[in-house]
């Protein structure tokens, strides 16, 4: 029987947006979308898709992509399909615009209940918008499943999963019984590029859409537990002193002397 893998992906503003194009509307505590820069699938989530597809490359597996949000851009959200995932399931609703982690966990859990069961639930290590790194951990606690974070390799085995977990200095090998929630990090290696065939196949697929009603959830049950009081762009206070010289080597020499003068080295 095919291994069933769910991958949670989030649509986020492009994190490579240059700082000069990044803007905040402080009166409503919101990020203003940068004009002309489309959103992307969160980078680490593509690493999670890659982890799922590597499992599918070597065995019998079915990959379902789950996303919660609003205003999905279909060209963007179909990327996992064009990489080789089988199905895309979207929970899209204006009420899902400003979800916090607790709300997101509730919606994802309901989606998994509806489209599961899954042997593995993969997610990115963190979403590059709010940088929280906790939705998958919450999902695991909420569903009563074990969780392992920061995978650089994911290997399902009979009734369990073996994960190489990246540490700041090295790695751990952890085994957990399945079903389990695993977050994937960039140490797994580059996510594959969609092939032309993949893009064609994805363009013919339609996502499955679930409303809050379908999921048996009400907007009231998704109120945030943390309230955002202020969102602002910090002032950069630093005034750089550019060291010049007769040529680049001379500037390097003068830089060393300047640092020495101030007793910094």
């Amino acid at each position: 029987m095919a291994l069933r893998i769910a991958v949670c992906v989030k649509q986020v503003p492009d994190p490579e947006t240059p700082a000069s194009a990044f803007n905040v509307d402080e009166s409503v505590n919101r990020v203003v979308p940068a004009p002309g820069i489309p959103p992307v699938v969160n980078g680490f989530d593509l690493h999670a898709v890659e982890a799922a597809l590597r499992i599918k490359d070597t065995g019998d597996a079915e990959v379902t992509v789950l996303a919660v949000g609003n205003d999905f851009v279909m060209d963007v959200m179909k990327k996992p399909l064009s990489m080789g995932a089988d199905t895309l399931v979207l929970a899209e609703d204006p009420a899902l615009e400003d979800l916090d982690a607790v709300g997101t966990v509730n919606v994802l859990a309901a989606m998994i209940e509806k489209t599961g069961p899954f042997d593995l639930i993969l997610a990115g290590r963190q979403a590059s918008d709010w940088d929280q790194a906790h939705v998958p951990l919450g999902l695991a606690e909420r569903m009563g499943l074990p969780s392992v974070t920061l995978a650089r390799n994911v290997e399902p085995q009979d009734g369990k999963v073996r994960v190489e977990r990246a540490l700041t200095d090295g790695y751990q090998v952890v085994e957990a019984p399945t079903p389990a929630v695993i977050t994937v990090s960039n140490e797994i290696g580059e996510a594959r590029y969609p092939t032309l065939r993949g893009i064609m196949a994805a363009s013919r697929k339609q996502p499955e859409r679930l409303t809050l009603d379908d999921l048996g959830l009400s907007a009231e049950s998704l109120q945030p537990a943390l309230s955002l009081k202020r969102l602002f762009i910090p002032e950069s206070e630093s005034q750089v002193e550019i060291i010049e010289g007769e040529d680049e080597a001379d500037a390097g020499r003068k830089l060393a002397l300047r640092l020495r003068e101030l007793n910094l080295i």
Partner: protein
Amino acid sequence: MSGILVIGEVQDGAIAPVSAELLAAARKLADEGVGGGISLAVMGDDLSGVSAAQAPGADSIVLISNPALKDGGTGGYDAPVLAVAALNESKSPDVILFAKTDFGAVAGPRLAFKLGVPVAQDCIDIAVDSETGRVAVTRPVFGGNALAVYGFNGDGTQIATIRPGVFDPIEGEGSGSVEEFDASEAVSEVRSTLVETVVQQSEGVRLEDADFIISGGRGLGGPEPFEQLQELADVLGGAVGASRAACDAGWVDHSYQIGLTGKSVKPTVYLSVGISGASQHMAGLSGARNIVAINKDGDANIFKSARFGVVGDWEKVLPAFTATVRDLAG
């Protein structure tokens, strides 16, 4: 419900420096009105090297010894999460603080969801909101492009993880009381197993502790230039770091990575070479005192946060810099 519970970590048998930073954050909250005292919980299989003296700022130290808690417990951190949940039940603190380390970044949220309370990750400031009496935190968002201030709603336990390197530890020796807590029943529910831990630490000074760091990015063009960086680090007794781009390219191991998803560092001098200064990289530098940049692009973002800079090709600038440093060192 009262008091602040600080979740400590052990490094080389003693209370870790990052936990001393947490105690400073806790002390700030206590000074601003969170009553009930500060307890520091420390977990492990052998805590004989841990003493109250290592924990200035703590009113009490709670030792939780159990074989299941060795080296931070199993890889999913099941055991420590269960142990802290049990301790929470007996102490019901108002606030629980973790450091945003390998351990805290996972254990903090897991505990929060287990208790059904909110958590704020990776905070760089924490304060008491004078209007509500509840905790407010400041955290970088959107890769550090913006800062967000959050308040905790409701009246439940408030859990936060604090970015290492932003609070200065309290000086001096601690004199808190010491108690023990038995978590053996709680930790019996562990499900995942830690098969092995492979430590890949570069020799010499740890990046987190280094006073001088020279860091390389995509602009170095390959792995070889990192040898030049290492030479300079050796002369100055410092450490070598890297941007994610250099690590992802395989030029150096990911243990060199500095930034939002790498290490947080706090050197006196951070010399960046061929790094553009993306907000996610700068996120690791909130504790760096003097950022110095060598970059051939005068418009690079790094110059916005740097104190000193040279606009030029590192291949020309760096050898002259290193030679001068050598001369100065005599």
